């Protein structure tokens, strides 16, 4: 068991990769064996993430050097600089790995029957596993160039999956937009890595943070990195691709793309807090992130109110929810070097922001899956054409209500818990921001009730007489996310202390991250 824990960071990434390479071969043997392989590998990855999380929360950092003579030999004997690639897992990256593992497991189970009639399913599952492995790779690595490679894997797999249903005209266009935006963002990340490599001849995040002097070139590299990750996150000025891609992709792939954009959010935090950390002029960079957050929040929800396509509506809400996270973490970043402000509301804001990531991944995922179920049964995404589906599709309606309640922050739900944390702390930082956040939450509630009535309530439309409930595995996929939401709604305090707070502490303590590589090592 101990041996499994020491090797678990690389196994979390290597097992989905191994399964992805095996799928085309197993698929020639039998379709059943392929489905079992896909679900088993993702379940095994989830199991490994959980046992690694249980090992990380008590004793902090977990180092894994690839190719060295022992896992924690980060720097070769009597040498000053790490040469090999080092996987560095702290409580923030394991927190994101939990989100990725849960979302990809739910997506795989959901698409077992969602993709039943499609041709070319073995390609679909291969790319689904590669997308999951790409996200895991981004979250667990401690090397900048490795982050770029796995960012690229997630983009290519995501774009190919978005254009999976080639018979629809707009599928290829959505995929094309996603791959162009991801390639431009990835190449900007590559330029920033080149600039940092030119100055310090290092690629490891910890080692770079150790020798960083924040020269003019580092500011340019920081600007490139922030713009690139904002493009991938669909921050407002750069969000044009997001509604087109999310509304076109199959439902299970949309929630994987949402999880992929949160992996990029993690990468943004890793560069702001760990790579640059204390040597940033924190107030300006903090305020830049806050402005991105507020813009995304407000413009996202105002665009969403009058959407007719249910998945475009949810895509715009996704942008506005990302705004909440950016606001929470931006406030924490802005006060990072003022200890008394940090302790009063900075850490609470970051806890709220990070807790909001997992909440949003769960309820946004659930809402997209219900939209997929509606599409499967009614063949359309247009809210005006739907109506009175509550009578026939019981389970989907219940799941939709759970999701809608928690996205608009109604008291018992987990969405409310994280938004409350954000409101309280942001109000002390700057009251106007908190007011904007509350208005956004009200508009979210308004648009989701509108969608609920037009899709589920109302008289039963004649052409949906014989519509029956969605098959079992789609309900199972939705049930996983719904169970997560209910668990988080019942014990928000427990989750914040056990999951979100250690993640915030890990993000803030840059020194621990650095001497994990430079200091101990031997």
């Amino acid at each position: 068991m101990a041996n499994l824990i020491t090797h678990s960071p690389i196994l979390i990434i290597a097992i989905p990769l191994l399964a992805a390479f095996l799928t085309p071969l197993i698929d020639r043997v039998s379709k059943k064996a392929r489905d079992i392989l896909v679900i088993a590998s993702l379940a095994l990855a989830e199991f490994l993430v959980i046992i690694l999380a249980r090992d990380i929360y008590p004793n902090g950092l977990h180092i894994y050097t690839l190719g060295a003579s022992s896992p924690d030999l980060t720097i070769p004997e009597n040498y000053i600089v790490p040469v090999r690639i080092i996987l560095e897992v702290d409580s923030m990256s394991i927190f994101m790995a939990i989100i990725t593992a849960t979302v990809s497991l739910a997506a795989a189970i959901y698409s077992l029957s969602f993709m039943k009639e499609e041709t070319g399913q073995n390609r679909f599952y291969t790319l689904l596993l590669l997308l999951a492995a790409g996200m895991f790779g981004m979250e667990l690595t401690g090397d900048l160039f490795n982050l770029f490679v796995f960012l690229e894997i997630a983009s290519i797999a995501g774009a190919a999956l978005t254009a999976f249903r080639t018979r629809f005209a707009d599928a290829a266009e959505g995929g094309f937009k996603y791959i162009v935006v991801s390639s431009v963002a990835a190449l900007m990340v590559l330029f920033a890595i080149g600039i940092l490599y030119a100055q310090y001849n290092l690629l490891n995040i910890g080692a770079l943070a150790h020798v960083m002097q924040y020269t003019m070139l580092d500011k340019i590299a920081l600007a490139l990195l922030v713009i690139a990750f904002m493009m991938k996150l669909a921050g407002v000025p750069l969000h044009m691709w997001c509604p087109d891609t999310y509304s076109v992709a199959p439902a299970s792939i949309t929630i994987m793309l949402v999880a992929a954009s949160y992996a990029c959010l993690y990468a943004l935090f890793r560069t702001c807090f760990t790579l640059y950390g204390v040597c940033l002029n924190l107030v300006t960079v903090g305020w830049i992130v806050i402005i991105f957050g507020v813009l995304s929040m407000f413009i996202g929800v105002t665009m969403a109110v009058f959407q007719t396509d249910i998945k475009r509506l949810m895509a715009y809400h996704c942008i506005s929810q990302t705004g909440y996270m950016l606001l929470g973490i931006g406030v924490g970043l802005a006060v990072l070097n003022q200890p008394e402000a940090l302790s009063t509301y900075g850490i609470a804001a970051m806890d709220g922001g990070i807790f909001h990531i997992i909440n949003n991944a769960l309820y946004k995922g659930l809402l997209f899956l219900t939209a997929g179920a509606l599409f499967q049964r009614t063949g359309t995404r247009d809210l005006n054409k739907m109506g009175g589906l509550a009578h026939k599709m019981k389970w989907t309606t219940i799941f939709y209500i759970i999701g809608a309640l928690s996205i608009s922050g109604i008291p018992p739900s987990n969405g409310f818990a994280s938004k409350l944390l954000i409101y309280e702390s942001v109000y002390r930082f700057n009251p106007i921001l908190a007011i904007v956040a509350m208005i956004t939450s009200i508009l979210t509630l308004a648009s989701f009730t509108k969608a609920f009535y037009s899709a589920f309530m109302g008289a039963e439309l004649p052409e949906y007489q014989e519509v029956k409930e969605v098959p079992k595995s789609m309900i199972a996929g939705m049930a996983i996310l719904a169970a997560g939401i209910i668990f988080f709604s019942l014990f928000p305090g427990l989750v914040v202390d056990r999951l979100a707070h250690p993640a915030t502490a890990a993000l803030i303590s840059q020194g621990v991250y650095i001497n994990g590589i430079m200091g101990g090592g031997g």
Partner: protein
Amino acid sequence: MTQGIPFNVPFLAVAAMIGIAFYIIISQRNLIKLVMGLSILASGANLFLITLGYREGGVAPIYTYTPAGIMVLPVPQALTLTSIVIAVACLALMLSMVIHIYRHTGSTDSEKSRIMKG
């Protein structure tokens, strides 16, 4: 170690390539030209990585029959190998999607094939 204009010409070439590539990506409406702009951006990134690793009077870091002289940095060449294959992968995927867009909408003009509005 004079740091005059002539010494940094490769980095100016990289900056020029990036500027041209971004101009093409922003201004071109035809999807094929947009893909070309992106491949220019990718080759600009590769040029940048390679020129980072050059050492004055250096030879390739391979020990089979090496002539005398200090050796060029090996790591940027490995990174460039990776980014070349990434550029090829993105190019192949983008072009196959452009073929699909052309097949569905009959034109590769990004304005006309704008199916989704708002």
